[in-house]
C-alpha cells in the first residue's frame, strides 16, 4: 500500500497539486488511522493533501483513476511491483472481502508487467489537457481552447494573487500613527511605551494596463485582464486601456473585454499613434506612483514607432513593464520593433503561453509593490 500511495502522490503532482513531504506523511498516517474502505480512504487522503477546494475536482479525478474499482472496464492502474506484500501487511481492517483481494487477483491475471505511462486512461486526459493548455502558445490556440482558458484563470491566478499578497506588508517604520499609539498607550496608563507606525497601504501605486487587442494578441490580452482582476486591490487605481491604433478604456465583464468607446478592432496596429494619444492625454507622464504594464507584440505595420514618446513616458512613470505574447524568437521579425521599445522599459518579459504570462505577472508583483 505504501508504494501505491507514493505512486498516487506522484500522480497528484502531475495533475497540478503539490503536496509537501510533510503532507504526504500526514496522508499516510491518516490512511493508517482511517482504513482502506474506499470512502474513508478518499476522505483521509483528501483532508491531508487537498488544502484548497478548487483542487478537489482534480484530486477526485486522480483518485478515481488510481484506486479504480476492478469492475470498471478500460481503467488501468499504475501499480508498483511488490504490491501483493504491501496489501497483505495491512492487517485486520482488510478483512472485508471486496477490493483488496479482488485487486491483487486481477493484477496477477491481467497484467504480468508494469503498464507503460502511454496507457493512461481517458479519465486523466482532461487534467493533462489543462496542463498542456497552460504551456501552449496563445497564437496556436483554437476557439475551443480559448474558451477553456477560463479554467486556467483560477489556477494560475491563485499564484499571482499569493505573490501580490506577500508583497503587501506592514511597515516597521514610517509615519507615526497617532491614533493607534494612543490606543495602545491606554493600557499602559497613558504612557506611549510602544509607538505604532502607519501601515504601508498596499494600494499606494496606480496601475495602467495597456493591452493590445489586435488579432495576434487578443487572446493573451483577455487572459491578462482576467488574471489581473484579483491583483487589483493591491493598487490604488487601476486603469485598463486596450489599443490597436488608439487607446480605449475597457473593462472586463463576464470574461469579455468591453470597450467604453467605439473601438475598431480591425484597424491596423500602430503603437506609435497610441503613444501619441497617451502623450496628449498625459503630457506630464503618468506619475511617480504609476506602473505602466504594456501587453503587445510591438508590431507597428512599419509606421513610426515614436520611441521618444515611450522614453518620455518612462522617465515620468514609476515603472514600465512590457509583456510580449510572442515567443522570443519572433521578436524583431517582420514589422516588430521590439528592440526599439525595449530600450525604454524596465522589464521585458515573454508572455507567450498562459503559464509564462502568469509568471510574468508574479514578476510584476516584485517590481511594483
Amino acid at each position, binding site marked *: 500500500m505504501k508504494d501505491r500511495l507514493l505512486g498516487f502522490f506522484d500522480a497528484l503532482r502531475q495533475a497540478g497539486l503539490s503536496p*509537501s513531504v*510533510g*503532507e504526504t506523511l*500526514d496522508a499516510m*498516517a*491518516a490512511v493508517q*488511522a*482511517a482504513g482502506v474502505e474506499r*470512502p*474513508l480512504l478518499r*476522505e*483521509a487522503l*483528501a*483532508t*491531508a493533501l*487537498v*488544502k*484548497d*477546494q478548487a483542487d*478537489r475536482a482534480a484530486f477526485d479525478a486522480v483518485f478515481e483513476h488510481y484506486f479504480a474499482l476492478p469492475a470498471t472496464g478500460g481503467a488501468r492502474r499504475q501499480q508498483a511491483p511488490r504490491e501483493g506484500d504491501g496489501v497483505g501487511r495491512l492487517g485486520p481492517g482488510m478483512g472485508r472481502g471486496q477490493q483488496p483481494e479482488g485487486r491483487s487477483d486481477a493484477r496477477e491475471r491481467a497484467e504480468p508487467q508494469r503498464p507503460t505511462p502511454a496507457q493512461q486512461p481517458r479519465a486523466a486526459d482532461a487534467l493533462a489537457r489543462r496542463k498542456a493548455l497552460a504551456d501552449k502558445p496563445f497564437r496556436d490556440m483554437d476557439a475551443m481552447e480559448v474558451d477553456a482558458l477560463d479554467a486556467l484563470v483560477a489556477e494560475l491566478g*491563485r499564484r499571482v*494573487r*499569493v505573490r501580490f*499578497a*506577500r508583497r503587501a*506588508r*506592514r511597515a516597521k517604520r514610517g509615519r507615526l500613527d497617532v491614533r493607534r499609539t494612543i490606543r495602545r498607550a491606554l*493600557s*499602559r*496608563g497613558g504612557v506611549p511605551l510602544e509607538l505604532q507606525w502607519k501601515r504601508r497601504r498596499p494600494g499606494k501605486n496606480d496601475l495602467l494596463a495597456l493591452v493590445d487587442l489586435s488579432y495576434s494578441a487578443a487572446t493573451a490580452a483577455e487572459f491578462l485582464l482576467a488574471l489581473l482582476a484579483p491583483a487589483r486591490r493591491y493598487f490604488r487605481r487601476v486603469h485598463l486601456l486596450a489599443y490597436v491604433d488608439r487607446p480605449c478604456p475597457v473593462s472586463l465583464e463576464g470574461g469579455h473585454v468591453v470597450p467604453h468607446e467605439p473601438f475598431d478592432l480591425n484597424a491596423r496596429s500602430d503603437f506609435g499613434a497610441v503613444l501619441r494619444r497617451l502623450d496628449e492625454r498625459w503630457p506630464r507622464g503618468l506619475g511617480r506612483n504609476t506602473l505602466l504594464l504594456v501587453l503587445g507584440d510591438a508590431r507597428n505595420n512599419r509606421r513610426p514607432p515614436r520611441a521618444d514618446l515611450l522614453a518620455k513616458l518612462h522617465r515620468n512613470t514609476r515603472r514600465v513593464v512590457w509583456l510580449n505574447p510572442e515567443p522570443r524568437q519572433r521578436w524583431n521579425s517582420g514589422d516588430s520593433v521590439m528592440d526599439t521599445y525595449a530600450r525604454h522599459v524596465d522589464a521585458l518579459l515573454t508572455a507567450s503561453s498562459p503559464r509564462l504570462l502568469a509568471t510574468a505577472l508574479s514578476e510584476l508583483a516584485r517590481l511594483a509593490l
Partner: protein
Amino acid sequence: MEITREAIREGLARARYITTDAVETVLFLALTLEKPLLIEGPAGAGKTEIGKVLAETLHGELIRLQCYEGLDEAKALYEWNYQKQLLRIQADRDQGLSGEEVTQHAFAREYLLERPLLRAISTPRRSVLLIDEVDKADEEFEAFLLELLSDFQVTIPELGTVRATHRPVVVLTSNRARELSEALKRRCFYLWLDFPGAEKEREIVALKVPELDARLQEHVARFVNALRKLDLHKAPSIAETLDWARALRALQIRELNAAAVRQTLNVVLKHEEDLRKADSKLSALIGAATK
C-alpha cells in the same frame, strides 16, 4: 474519552449536529492524529458550530479566539494588567520594600491577563481551541499562530515557559476572504464545509423544529436548497432556514404557497436585491420545493 468513529458519531448526534460521513471521518482523523483542523466554506454552513459541538462531544472547555484585522499577539496571548501592577508597586514602595521584592510582586501570575491562546495552553482540562475567521487576521498573526501550533508553549519573560499539559484540539475556520498562507495550510488537515443538500437540511429542520409539519419541513428544505442555487448576494445560512421554519410555525402557516413565502421570505434573505431576485423566480422555486 476514547476517540473512535462511533464515539464521534454518537457525540455529534447527542449535540444534535447533523452532518455527512465525510465530515465525521475528517473529525475523527484530526482528533486521532492530533492535527489542527482548518475548515473553510461559505458563511453560515456550520463551521463555528463544529468547534462548539466538538467541545461538547469531548466534554471539554471551548476556548474561542475571534480573529479580526489588527489582532496581535498581545490581544491573543497575554497582557499585563498594568494598572494593577502600578498600584501594587506604589503600595510596596510605601511599605519600603526593596527593588527586587517589588519587581517580584509586580510580576506575579495574578497580574497576568490571560487571553484565549494562553488559556488554551495552560488549562488543565481538555479543551477545544476555536480560532474563528482566521482569514480576517493578517499574515504576521498567522506566522505567530504557526509557531504556537507547533510547540504549544509560550515563554513569558518574567514568569518562564508555560507548556501545555494537554494539547488542545485546534479548529480554525475561514470564510475565504483571503488566501491563507501555505505554511499554515500544510500544518492542518483541511475540511470544506459546504451547505447541506436538501435531504440533509430536511433532517436538520426535523431535528431542530420538530413541531413543524413533516411535509412542510421537506418543502422548506427544498426551497432553501433551490434558493441557494440562484446567484444571490448572500446565500441563506442553515440558521436562517431554521428561523424560517420557526416563523412558519409561529404564524401557523400550513402550506408553502406564494403568499406565505412572500410574507416570510425576509427571514431567510436579508438583502433587498436578493429578495427581489427570489420574488421574480418565486413560482419556479415553489415548484421545485413542493413537487
